[in-house]
Protein backbone atom coordinates (compact mmCIF):
# COMPACT_ATOMS: atom_id res chain seq x y z
CA UNK A 1 0.00 0.00 0.00
CA UNK A 2 1.42 3.35 -1.01
CA UNK A 3 1.42 6.32 1.27
CA UNK A 4 -0.88 9.14 0.26
CA UNK A 5 0.72 12.59 0.33
CA UNK A 6 -2.42 14.53 -0.44
CA UNK A 7 -6.13 14.01 -1.04
CA UNK A 8 -8.08 16.18 -3.48
CA UNK A 9 -11.81 16.60 -2.82
CA UNK A 10 -14.08 17.75 -5.63
CA UNK A 11 -17.26 19.45 -4.42
CA UNK A 12 -19.36 20.37 -7.47
CA UNK A 13 -22.19 22.24 -5.75
CA UNK A 14 -23.61 23.05 -2.33
CA UNK A 15 -26.55 20.71 -2.74
CA UNK A 16 -27.25 17.72 -4.96
CA UNK A 17 -29.93 18.93 -7.35
CA UNK A 18 -28.67 22.51 -7.08
CA UNK A 19 -27.05 22.27 -10.49
CA UNK A 20 -23.54 23.04 -11.71
CA UNK A 21 -21.85 23.47 -15.10
CA UNK A 22 -20.55 20.11 -16.44
CA UNK A 23 -17.17 21.81 -16.90
CA UNK A 24 -16.93 21.98 -13.10
CA UNK A 25 -16.50 18.24 -12.91
CA UNK A 26 -14.28 17.99 -16.01
CA UNK A 27 -11.96 20.59 -14.53
CA UNK A 28 -11.92 18.85 -11.15
CA UNK A 29 -10.93 15.54 -12.70
CA UNK A 30 -8.20 17.25 -14.73
CA UNK A 31 -6.80 18.64 -11.48
CA UNK A 32 -6.57 15.11 -10.09
CA UNK A 33 -9.63 14.78 -7.84
CA UNK A 34 -9.43 11.70 -5.59
CA UNK A 35 -13.06 11.78 -4.46
CA UNK A 36 -16.31 13.58 -5.29
CA UNK A 37 -18.36 14.66 -2.29
CA UNK A 38 -21.68 16.46 -2.29
CA UNK A 39 -24.27 17.24 0.32
CA UNK A 40 -27.89 16.39 -0.45
CA UNK A 41 -29.59 17.96 2.51
CA UNK A 42 -30.41 20.83 4.76
CA UNK A 43 -32.68 21.83 7.62
CA UNK A 44 -32.69 25.39 6.31
CA UNK A 45 -36.01 25.11 4.49
CA UNK A 46 -37.85 24.06 7.59
CA UNK A 47 -39.31 21.00 9.29
CA UNK A 48 -41.65 19.83 6.52
CA UNK A 49 -39.02 17.85 4.61
CA UNK A 50 -37.98 15.84 7.68
CA UNK A 51 -41.53 15.48 9.00
CA UNK A 52 -42.93 14.28 5.69
CA UNK A 53 -39.76 12.46 4.59
CA UNK A 54 -39.97 14.16 1.20
CA UNK A 55 -37.14 15.93 -0.63
CA UNK A 56 -37.03 19.66 -1.29
CA UNK A 57 -35.28 19.11 -4.61
CA UNK A 58 -36.99 18.05 -7.84
CA UNK A 59 -36.36 14.48 -8.97
CA UNK A 60 -35.24 15.63 -12.43
CA UNK A 61 -32.73 18.08 -10.93
CA UNK A 62 -31.25 15.42 -8.66
CA UNK A 63 -31.09 12.95 -11.57
CA UNK A 64 -29.37 15.50 -13.79
CA UNK A 65 -26.64 16.18 -11.19
CA UNK A 66 -26.30 12.50 -10.29
CA UNK A 67 -25.86 11.44 -13.91
CA UNK A 68 -22.91 13.81 -14.37
CA UNK A 69 -21.32 12.72 -11.08
CA UNK A 70 -21.79 8.98 -11.62
CA UNK A 71 -20.25 9.25 -15.09
CA UNK A 72 -17.33 11.25 -13.66
CA UNK A 73 -16.76 8.83 -10.77
CA UNK A 74 -16.82 5.85 -13.14
CA UNK A 75 -14.52 7.43 -15.72
CA UNK A 76 -11.95 8.52 -13.14
CA UNK A 77 -12.31 5.45 -10.92
CA UNK A 78 -12.86 7.54 -7.80
CA UNK A 79 -15.56 7.29 -5.11
CA UNK A 80 -18.70 9.45 -5.02
CA UNK A 81 -20.11 10.30 -1.60
CA UNK A 82 -23.53 11.88 -1.12
CA UNK A 83 -24.69 12.96 2.33
CA UNK A 84 -28.14 13.70 3.79
CA UNK A 85 -29.90 12.11 0.83
CA UNK A 86 -33.36 13.44 0.02
CA UNK A 87 -32.92 16.74 1.96
CA UNK A 88 -33.56 15.37 5.46
CA UNK A 89 -31.63 12.08 5.29
CA UNK A 90 -34.56 9.90 6.32
CA UNK A 91 -34.55 6.30 5.14
CA UNK A 92 -37.16 7.34 2.54
CA UNK A 93 -34.72 10.00 1.29
CA UNK A 94 -31.90 7.47 0.96
CA UNK A 95 -34.23 5.09 -0.90
CA UNK A 96 -35.31 7.91 -3.21
CA UNK A 97 -31.74 8.81 -4.20
CA UNK A 98 -30.81 5.11 -4.41
CA UNK A 99 -33.70 4.51 -6.82
CA UNK A 100 -32.59 7.37 -9.07
CA UNK A 101 -29.01 6.09 -8.88
CA UNK A 102 -29.98 2.55 -9.92
CA UNK A 103 -31.92 3.91 -12.88
CA UNK A 104 -28.98 5.99 -14.09
CA UNK A 105 -26.45 3.19 -13.60
CA UNK A 106 -28.62 0.92 -15.74
CA UNK A 107 -29.23 3.55 -18.41
CA UNK A 108 -25.54 4.46 -18.60
CA UNK A 109 -24.37 0.86 -18.30
CA UNK A 110 -22.09 1.71 -15.40
CA UNK A 111 -21.08 -0.98 -12.92
CA UNK A 112 -20.47 0.97 -9.74
CA UNK A 113 -20.88 -0.64 -6.32
CA UNK A 114 -23.44 1.32 -4.30
CA UNK A 115 -23.66 1.37 -0.49
CA UNK A 116 -26.56 2.94 1.38
CA UNK A 117 -26.35 4.13 4.99
CA UNK A 118 -29.56 4.55 6.95
CA UNK A 119 -29.88 7.08 9.76
CA UNK A 120 -33.59 7.01 10.73
CA UNK A 121 -34.09 6.28 14.43
CA UNK A 122 -36.93 4.66 16.34
CA UNK A 123 -38.13 6.56 19.42
CA UNK A 124 -38.26 3.34 21.45
CA UNK A 125 -34.62 2.54 20.67
CA UNK A 126 -33.48 6.04 21.71
CA UNK A 127 -35.52 6.25 24.91
CA UNK A 128 -33.00 4.21 26.92
CA UNK A 129 -29.89 6.09 25.75
CA UNK A 130 -28.23 9.07 27.46
CA UNK A 131 -29.61 12.14 25.67
CA UNK A 132 -28.55 15.73 26.44
CA UNK A 133 -30.17 18.99 25.25
CA UNK A 134 -28.26 21.60 23.26
CA UNK A 135 -29.08 25.28 23.90
CA UNK A 136 -31.80 26.55 23.75
CA UNK A 137 -33.60 23.18 24.16
CA UNK A 138 -34.67 21.65 27.45
CA UNK A 139 -34.55 18.04 28.69
CA UNK A 140 -36.19 15.44 26.51
CA UNK A 141 -39.02 13.16 27.56
CA UNK A 142 -40.17 9.94 25.94
CA UNK A 143 -43.48 11.49 24.84
CA UNK A 144 -41.67 14.11 22.76
CA UNK A 145 -39.62 11.41 21.04
CA UNK A 146 -42.80 9.41 20.40
CA UNK A 147 -44.53 12.47 18.91
CA UNK A 148 -42.03 12.74 16.03
CA UNK A 149 -43.03 11.61 12.55
CA UNK A 150 -39.36 11.10 11.71
CA UNK A 151 -36.14 11.13 13.71
CA UNK A 152 -32.67 11.01 12.18
CA UNK A 153 -29.21 10.87 13.74
CA UNK A 154 -26.45 12.95 12.13
CA UNK A 155 -23.56 10.63 11.36
CA UNK A 156 -19.93 11.62 11.38
CA UNK A 157 -17.40 10.30 8.88
CA UNK A 158 -17.12 6.82 10.42
CA UNK A 159 -20.08 5.04 8.76
CA UNK A 160 -19.06 6.54 5.41
CA UNK A 161 -15.49 5.32 5.88
CA UNK A 162 -16.85 1.88 6.78
CA UNK A 163 -18.84 1.76 3.53
CA UNK A 164 -15.81 2.85 1.48
CA UNK A 165 -13.60 0.32 3.23
CA UNK A 166 -16.12 -2.39 2.36
CA UNK A 167 -15.59 -1.58 -1.29
CA UNK A 168 -18.30 0.93 -2.16
CA UNK A 169 -17.75 3.16 -5.20
CA UNK A 170 -20.84 5.21 -4.41
CA UNK A 171 -21.94 5.97 -0.84
CA UNK A 172 -25.51 7.24 -0.38
CA UNK A 173 -25.68 8.37 3.22
CA UNK A 174 -28.67 9.32 5.32
CA UNK A 175 -28.38 12.35 7.58
CA UNK A 176 -24.73 13.26 7.95
CA UNK A 177 -23.02 16.40 9.15
CA UNK A 178 -22.30 18.64 6.15
CA UNK A 179 -18.60 18.30 6.87
CA UNK A 180 -18.48 14.50 7.35
CA UNK A 181 -19.35 13.97 3.69
CA UNK A 182 -16.20 15.77 2.52
CA UNK A 183 -13.95 14.78 5.45
CA UNK A 184 -14.54 11.02 5.23
CA UNK A 185 -12.20 10.15 2.38
CA UNK A 186 -9.19 12.29 3.41
CA UNK A 187 -9.49 10.97 6.98
CA UNK A 188 -9.65 7.42 5.66
CA UNK A 189 -6.46 8.10 3.69
CA UNK A 190 -4.65 9.27 6.81
CA UNK A 191 -4.79 13.03 6.35
CA UNK A 192 -4.56 15.02 9.60
CA UNK A 193 -7.89 15.76 11.27
CA UNK A 194 -7.49 19.55 11.61
CA UNK A 195 -7.01 20.34 7.91
CA UNK A 196 -9.40 17.58 6.80
CA UNK A 197 -12.31 18.86 8.90
CA UNK A 198 -11.62 22.55 8.28
CA UNK A 199 -11.37 21.97 4.52
CA UNK A 200 -14.60 19.97 4.66
CA UNK A 201 -16.39 22.89 6.32
CA UNK A 202 -15.05 25.37 3.75
CA UNK A 203 -16.14 23.27 0.74
CA UNK A 204 -19.52 22.08 2.02
CA UNK A 205 -21.40 24.79 0.12
CA UNK A 206 -19.44 24.36 -3.11
CA UNK A 207 -18.65 27.72 -4.68
CA UNK A 208 -19.91 29.73 -1.70
CA UNK A 209 -16.31 30.25 -0.52
CA UNK A 210 -15.31 31.85 -3.84
CA UNK A 211 -15.74 35.31 -5.30
CA UNK A 212 -18.54 33.99 -7.55
CA UNK A 213 -20.73 31.54 -5.62
CA UNK A 214 -22.88 30.83 -8.70
CA UNK A 215 -20.00 29.75 -10.92
CA UNK A 216 -19.68 26.13 -9.78
CA UNK A 217 -17.71 24.06 -7.33
CA UNK A 218 -14.33 23.94 -5.65
CA UNK A 219 -11.39 21.60 -5.21
CA UNK A 220 -9.63 21.27 -1.85
CA UNK A 221 -6.24 19.58 -1.57
CA UNK A 222 -5.48 18.30 1.91
CA UNK A 223 -1.96 17.32 2.94
CA UNK A 224 0.11 16.80 6.06
CA UNK A 225 0.39 20.52 6.89
CA UNK A 226 -2.87 22.10 5.81
CA UNK A 227 -5.02 22.50 2.76
CA UNK A 228 -5.24 24.48 -0.46
CA UNK A 229 -8.51 25.53 -2.04
CA UNK A 230 -9.33 26.72 -5.54
CA UNK A 231 -12.49 27.28 -7.56
CA UNK A 232 -13.27 25.00 -10.51
CA UNK A 233 -14.44 27.88 -12.69
CA UNK A 234 -11.28 29.50 -14.09
CA UNK A 235 -12.97 32.92 -13.92
CA UNK A 236 -13.75 32.66 -10.18
CA UNK A 237 -11.27 33.10 -7.34
CA UNK A 238 -10.73 32.04 -3.77
CA UNK A 239 -9.27 34.83 -1.65
CA UNK A 240 -8.23 34.68 2.00
CA UNK A 241 -11.32 36.76 2.76
CA UNK A 242 -13.77 34.69 0.71
CA UNK A 243 -12.48 31.49 2.30
CA UNK A 244 -12.31 32.77 5.88
CA UNK A 245 -15.73 34.39 5.55
CA UNK A 246 -17.31 31.04 4.76
CA UNK A 247 -16.78 30.02 8.40
CA UNK A 248 -19.51 32.57 9.18
CA UNK A 249 -22.12 31.05 6.91
CA UNK A 250 -25.06 29.46 8.74
CA UNK A 251 -22.97 28.98 11.87
CA UNK A 252 -23.59 30.21 15.40
CA UNK A 253 -19.88 30.35 16.24
CA UNK A 254 -17.39 30.99 13.41
CA UNK A 255 -14.36 29.63 15.29
CA UNK A 256 -15.44 26.30 16.73
CA UNK A 257 -17.78 23.64 15.39
CA UNK A 258 -18.80 20.41 17.08
CA UNK A 259 -18.73 17.15 15.13
CA UNK A 260 -19.69 13.74 16.52
CA UNK A 261 -16.06 12.87 17.26
CA UNK A 262 -14.81 16.23 18.46
CA UNK A 263 -14.54 19.94 17.76
CA UNK A 264 -13.13 21.80 14.76
CA UNK A 265 -11.05 24.73 16.07
CA UNK A 266 -10.14 27.35 13.46
CA UNK A 267 -9.48 30.39 15.67
CA UNK A 268 -5.74 30.15 14.96
CA UNK A 269 -6.04 29.27 11.28
CA UNK A 270 -3.95 31.34 8.85
CA UNK A 271 -5.29 32.05 5.35
CA UNK A 272 -2.65 32.91 2.75
CA UNK A 273 -3.07 33.72 -0.95
CA UNK A 274 -0.85 31.42 -3.05
CA UNK A 275 -1.81 33.34 -6.17
CA UNK A 276 -4.89 35.34 -7.25
CA UNK A 277 -7.08 32.22 -7.29
CA UNK A 278 -5.78 29.80 -4.65
CA UNK A 279 -5.67 30.02 -0.87
CA UNK A 280 -3.53 28.01 1.53
CA UNK A 281 -4.89 27.36 5.03
CA UNK A 282 -2.77 26.20 7.95
CA UNK A 283 -3.16 26.11 11.71
CA UNK A 284 -6.55 24.32 11.78
CA UNK A 285 -7.05 21.95 14.69
CA UNK A 286 -9.45 19.18 15.65
CA UNK A 287 -9.89 18.43 19.36
CA UNK A 288 -11.07 14.88 19.90
CA UNK A 289 -13.96 14.79 22.39
CA UNK A 290 -14.00 12.59 25.48
CA UNK A 291 -17.49 11.43 24.57
CA UNK A 292 -18.71 10.67 21.05
CA UNK A 293 -22.14 12.25 20.48
CA UNK A 294 -24.71 11.97 17.71
CA UNK A 295 -27.02 14.92 17.15
CA UNK A 296 -30.69 14.08 16.67
CA UNK A 297 -33.22 15.83 14.47
CA UNK A 298 -36.93 15.18 14.76
CA UNK A 299 -40.10 16.76 13.42
CA UNK A 300 -43.68 16.35 14.56
CA UNK A 301 -47.06 17.42 13.25
CA UNK A 302 -48.42 20.52 14.99
CA UNK A 303 -51.71 20.62 13.10
CA UNK A 304 -53.17 21.10 9.65
CA UNK A 305 -53.17 24.40 7.80
CA UNK A 306 -55.43 26.17 5.33
CA UNK A 307 -54.38 29.39 3.65
CA UNK A 308 -56.48 32.14 2.10
CA UNK A 309 -55.21 35.27 0.39
CA UNK A 310 -56.92 38.53 -0.48
CA UNK A 311 -55.50 41.95 -1.30
CA UNK A 312 -56.30 45.62 -0.65
CA UNK A 313 -55.70 48.53 -3.04
CA UNK A 314 -58.28 50.98 -1.66
CA UNK A 315 -56.33 53.98 -0.25
CA UNK A 316 -58.94 54.58 2.44
CA UNK A 317 -58.46 51.12 3.95
CA UNK A 318 -54.69 51.25 3.44
CA UNK A 319 -54.64 54.54 5.36
CA UNK A 320 -55.69 52.66 8.46
CA UNK A 321 -54.50 49.14 7.63
CA UNK A 322 -53.55 48.26 11.20
CA UNK A 323 -57.01 49.21 12.47
CA UNK A 324 -58.61 47.21 9.67
CA UNK A 325 -56.42 44.14 10.37
CA UNK A 326 -57.21 44.30 14.09
CA UNK A 327 -60.92 44.42 13.26
CA UNK A 328 -60.51 41.46 10.89
CA UNK A 329 -58.84 39.42 13.65
CA UNK A 330 -61.60 40.29 16.11
CA UNK A 331 -64.41 39.56 13.64
CA UNK A 332 -62.95 36.20 12.56
CA UNK A 333 -62.75 35.13 16.20
CA UNK A 334 -66.38 36.17 16.82
CA UNK A 335 -67.79 34.59 13.64
CA UNK A 336 -65.91 31.33 14.20
CA UNK A 337 -67.27 31.22 17.74
CA UNK A 338 -70.84 31.91 16.55
CA UNK A 339 -70.93 29.63 13.53
CA UNK A 340 -68.52 26.79 14.36
CA UNK A 341 -68.70 26.99 18.19
CA UNK A 342 -64.89 26.92 18.31
CA UNK A 343 -62.89 28.76 20.99
CA UNK A 344 -59.27 29.98 21.03
CA UNK A 345 -58.02 26.56 22.19
CA UNK A 346 -59.57 24.78 19.19
CA UNK A 347 -57.70 26.50 16.38
CA UNK A 348 -55.14 29.22 15.69
CA UNK A 349 -54.65 31.72 12.91
CA UNK A 350 -52.29 34.40 11.70
CA UNK A 351 -53.10 37.48 9.60
CA UNK A 352 -50.10 38.70 7.61
CA UNK A 353 -50.08 42.01 5.78
CA UNK A 354 -47.72 41.41 2.86
CA UNK A 355 -46.46 44.71 1.49
CA UNK A 356 -46.82 46.38 4.88
CA UNK A 357 -45.16 44.54 7.76
CA UNK A 358 -45.74 40.84 7.10
CA UNK A 359 -42.11 39.76 7.37
CA UNK A 360 -40.79 41.68 10.36
CA UNK A 361 -44.07 42.78 11.99
CA UNK A 362 -43.30 44.82 15.09
CA UNK A 363 -39.52 44.57 14.48
CA UNK A 364 -39.84 46.53 11.25
CA UNK A 365 -37.90 49.80 11.61
CA UNK A 366 -39.78 51.67 8.88
CA UNK A 367 -43.39 50.84 8.09
CA UNK A 368 -44.58 53.24 5.40
CA UNK A 369 -48.04 53.68 3.85
CA UNK A 370 -48.07 51.11 1.03
CA UNK A 371 -49.82 51.27 -2.33
CA UNK A 372 -51.25 47.77 -2.04
CA UNK A 373 -51.25 45.07 0.60
CA UNK A 374 -51.67 41.31 0.36
CA UNK A 375 -53.64 39.90 3.27
CA UNK A 376 -52.79 36.30 4.08
CA UNK A 377 -54.91 34.30 6.47
CA UNK A 378 -53.15 31.19 7.73
CA UNK A 379 -55.29 28.89 9.87
CA UNK A 380 -54.01 25.94 11.87
CA UNK A 381 -56.22 23.36 13.57
CA UNK A 382 -56.08 19.75 14.75
CA UNK A 383 -57.82 18.62 11.55
CA UNK A 384 -57.74 19.84 7.97
CA UNK A 385 -61.53 20.02 8.00
CA UNK A 386 -61.57 22.45 10.92
CA UNK A 387 -58.82 24.61 9.44
CA UNK A 388 -60.70 24.91 6.15
CA UNK A 389 -64.00 25.60 7.93
CA UNK A 390 -62.41 28.51 9.79
CA UNK A 391 -60.99 29.89 6.53
CA UNK A 392 -64.40 29.59 4.87
CA UNK A 393 -66.06 31.47 7.73
CA UNK A 394 -63.39 34.18 7.38
CA UNK A 395 -63.99 34.44 3.64
CA UNK A 396 -66.87 36.97 3.64
CA UNK A 397 -64.88 39.17 6.04
CA UNK A 398 -61.80 39.04 3.83
CA UNK A 399 -64.03 39.98 0.88
CA UNK A 400 -66.12 42.78 2.40
CA UNK A 401 -64.78 44.01 5.76
CA UNK A 402 -64.92 47.84 5.96
CA UNK A 403 -62.90 50.04 8.28
CA UNK A 404 -64.89 51.31 11.31
CA UNK A 405 -65.50 54.72 9.66
CA UNK A 406 -66.84 53.38 6.34
CA UNK A 407 -70.62 53.32 5.85
CA UNK A 408 -70.51 50.93 2.88
CA UNK A 409 -69.04 47.49 2.20
CA UNK A 410 -65.89 47.39 0.10
CA UNK A 411 -65.03 44.39 -2.06
CA UNK A 412 -61.43 43.28 -1.84
CA UNK A 413 -59.23 41.45 -4.34
CA UNK A 414 -59.08 37.71 -3.84
CA UNK A 415 -56.16 36.14 -5.66
CA UNK A 416 -57.65 32.71 -6.37
CA UNK A 417 -60.85 30.71 -6.67
CA UNK A 418 -61.41 28.73 -4.59
CA UNK A 419 -60.08 31.13 -2.00
CA UNK A 420 -58.82 28.40 0.32
CA UNK A 421 -55.65 26.36 -0.21
CA UNK A 422 -55.26 23.32 2.01
CA UNK A 423 -51.63 23.00 3.04
CA UNK A 424 -51.90 19.63 4.76
CA UNK A 425 -49.88 18.82 7.86
CA UNK A 426 -47.71 21.49 9.44
CA UNK A 427 -44.56 20.37 11.23
CA UNK A 428 -42.09 21.67 13.78
CA UNK A 429 -38.57 20.62 14.73
CA UNK A 430 -38.68 19.37 18.30
CA UNK A 431 -35.26 17.81 18.87
CA UNK A 432 -32.11 19.78 19.51
CA UNK A 433 -30.35 17.08 21.47
CA UNK A 434 -27.36 14.79 21.30
CA UNK A 435 -27.18 11.14 22.27
CA UNK A 436 -24.00 9.76 23.81
CA UNK A 437 -22.85 6.60 22.05
CA UNK A 438 -20.03 4.13 22.59
CA UNK A 439 -19.57 3.48 18.89
CA UNK A 440 -19.73 6.09 16.10
CA UNK A 441 -21.49 3.59 13.81
CA UNK A 442 -23.94 1.95 16.21
CA UNK A 443 -26.95 4.13 15.29
CA UNK A 444 -26.46 3.65 11.54
CA UNK A 445 -27.20 0.71 9.30
CA UNK A 446 -24.86 0.19 6.36
CA UNK A 447 -26.37 -1.78 3.50
CA UNK A 448 -23.77 -3.41 1.32
CA UNK A 449 -26.29 -5.70 -0.33
CA UNK A 450 -26.13 -3.68 -3.49
CA UNK A 451 -22.43 -4.42 -3.77
CA UNK A 452 -21.84 -6.89 -6.56
Amino acid at each position, binding site marked *: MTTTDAVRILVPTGMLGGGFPPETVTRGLELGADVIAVDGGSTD*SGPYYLGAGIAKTARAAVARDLRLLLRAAASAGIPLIIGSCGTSGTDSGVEWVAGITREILAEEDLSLRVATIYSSQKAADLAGLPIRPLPPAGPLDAATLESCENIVGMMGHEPIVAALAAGADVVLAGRATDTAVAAAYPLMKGMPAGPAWHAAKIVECGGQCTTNPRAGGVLATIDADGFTIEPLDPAAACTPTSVAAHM*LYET*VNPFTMREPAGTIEVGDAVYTALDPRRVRVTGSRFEVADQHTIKLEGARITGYQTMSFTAVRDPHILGQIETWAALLRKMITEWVSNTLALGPADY*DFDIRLYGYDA*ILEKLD*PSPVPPREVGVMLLVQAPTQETATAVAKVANPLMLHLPTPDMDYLPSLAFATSPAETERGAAYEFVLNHVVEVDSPTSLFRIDLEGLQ
Partner: protein
Amino acid sequence: MTARVIADLAHEVRSKNAGPFWVTLEIFARDADGYATVADPGFLDESVIASLYGVPDPRTIQVFRIPELNVVKISFPRPVTQGSLLDRDVHAGQHHVPLALMPLSSSRSSPR
Protein backbone atom coordinates in the same frame (compact mmCIF):
# COMPACT_ATOMS: atom_id res chain seq x y z
CA MET B 1 -23.17 60.57 1.22
CA THR B 2 -23.12 60.87 4.96
CA ALA B 3 -23.48 57.54 6.71
CA ARG B 4 -26.75 57.44 8.62
CA VAL B 5 -27.40 53.78 9.29
CA ILE B 6 -25.25 50.64 9.65
CA ALA B 7 -25.94 49.61 6.03
CA ASP B 8 -24.15 52.78 4.84
CA LEU B 9 -20.90 51.47 6.39
CA ALA B 10 -21.29 47.94 5.10
CA HIS B 11 -20.65 46.00 1.93
CA GLU B 12 -23.39 43.67 3.09
CA VAL B 13 -25.55 43.05 6.12
CA ARG B 14 -27.10 39.58 6.05
CA SER B 15 -29.11 37.18 8.17
CA LYS B 16 -29.74 33.45 8.04
CA ASN B 17 -30.71 30.47 10.11
CA ALA B 18 -27.80 28.77 11.86
CA GLY B 19 -29.61 25.47 12.17
CA PRO B 20 -33.31 25.34 13.04
CA PHE B 21 -32.96 26.98 16.44
CA TRP B 22 -30.61 29.94 15.92
CA VAL B 23 -30.48 33.11 13.85
CA THR B 24 -27.17 34.64 12.82
CA LEU B 25 -26.58 38.20 11.58
CA GLU B 26 -23.42 39.47 9.92
CA ILE B 27 -22.20 42.97 9.19
CA PHE B 28 -19.45 43.04 6.54
CA ALA B 29 -18.02 46.52 7.05
CA ARG B 30 -16.51 48.25 3.99
CA ASP B 31 -13.30 49.19 5.78
CA ALA B 32 -11.51 49.34 9.11
CA ASP B 33 -13.18 52.64 10.03
CA GLY B 34 -16.64 51.21 9.46
CA TYR B 35 -15.64 48.11 11.38
CA ALA B 36 -14.41 50.23 14.29
CA THR B 37 -17.81 51.90 14.49
CA VAL B 38 -19.95 48.75 14.42
CA ALA B 39 -17.55 46.69 16.55
CA ASP B 40 -17.58 49.29 19.34
CA PRO B 41 -19.37 47.66 22.28
CA GLY B 42 -20.55 51.15 23.28
CA PHE B 43 -22.49 51.28 20.00
CA LEU B 44 -23.58 47.69 19.47
CA ASP B 45 -23.78 45.06 22.16
CA GLU B 46 -26.02 42.29 23.45
CA SER B 47 -28.55 44.67 25.01
CA VAL B 48 -28.94 46.66 21.78
CA ILE B 49 -29.55 43.45 19.83
CA ALA B 50 -32.00 42.29 22.48
CA SER B 51 -34.13 45.40 22.07
CA LEU B 52 -33.79 45.46 18.28
CA TYR B 53 -34.90 41.83 17.91
CA GLY B 54 -37.07 41.29 20.96
CA VAL B 55 -34.73 38.66 22.40
CA PRO B 56 -36.06 37.99 25.90
CA ASP B 57 -32.71 37.13 27.51
CA PRO B 58 -29.64 39.15 26.36
CA ARG B 59 -27.37 36.49 27.89
CA THR B 60 -28.37 34.12 25.07
CA ILE B 61 -26.91 36.51 22.48
CA GLN B 62 -23.40 35.85 21.17
CA VAL B 63 -21.40 38.64 19.50
CA PHE B 64 -18.21 37.88 17.56
CA ARG B 65 -15.93 40.74 16.47
CA ILE B 66 -13.54 39.68 13.70
CA PRO B 67 -11.15 42.51 12.73
CA GLU B 68 -9.31 40.39 10.12
CA LEU B 69 -12.52 40.32 8.07
CA ASN B 70 -14.01 43.66 9.23
CA VAL B 71 -16.98 41.58 10.35
CA VAL B 72 -19.28 41.68 13.34
CA LYS B 73 -21.33 38.49 13.70
CA ILE B 74 -24.25 38.08 16.07
CA SER B 75 -26.10 34.86 16.93
CA PHE B 76 -29.14 34.30 19.12
CA PRO B 77 -31.87 31.68 19.61
CA ARG B 78 -34.67 31.99 17.06
CA PRO B 79 -37.49 33.93 18.79
CA VAL B 80 -40.14 32.19 16.63
CA THR B 81 -39.98 28.46 15.92
CA GLN B 82 -38.91 27.77 12.34
CA GLY B 83 -41.83 26.91 10.06
CA SER B 84 -44.44 27.43 12.79
CA LEU B 85 -47.74 29.24 12.26
CA LEU B 86 -46.15 32.50 13.42
CA ASP B 87 -42.87 32.17 11.49
CA ARG B 88 -42.92 34.66 8.64
CA ASP B 89 -39.31 34.16 7.55
CA VAL B 90 -38.49 30.45 7.32
CA HIS B 91 -34.82 30.96 6.41
CA ALA B 92 -34.49 34.10 8.59
CA GLY B 93 -33.18 35.66 5.38
CA GLN B 94 -34.77 39.11 5.79
CA HIS B 95 -34.08 39.62 9.46
CA HIS B 96 -30.97 41.65 8.77
CA VAL B 97 -33.09 44.72 8.04
CA PRO B 98 -33.58 46.09 11.58
CA LEU B 99 -29.80 45.85 12.09
CA ALA B 100 -28.97 47.30 8.66
CA LEU B 101 -31.30 50.26 9.23
CA MET B 102 -30.13 50.95 12.79
CA PRO B 103 -29.20 54.63 13.05
CA LEU B 104 -25.53 55.39 13.68
CA SER B 105 -26.42 58.41 15.78
CA SER B 106 -28.07 56.42 18.52
CA SER B 107 -27.22 52.96 19.74
CA ARG B 108 -30.31 52.73 21.93
CA SER B 109 -32.96 52.90 19.28
CA SER B 110 -35.93 50.73 20.06
CA PRO B 111 -38.42 49.06 17.78
CA ARG B 112 -41.64 50.91 17.24
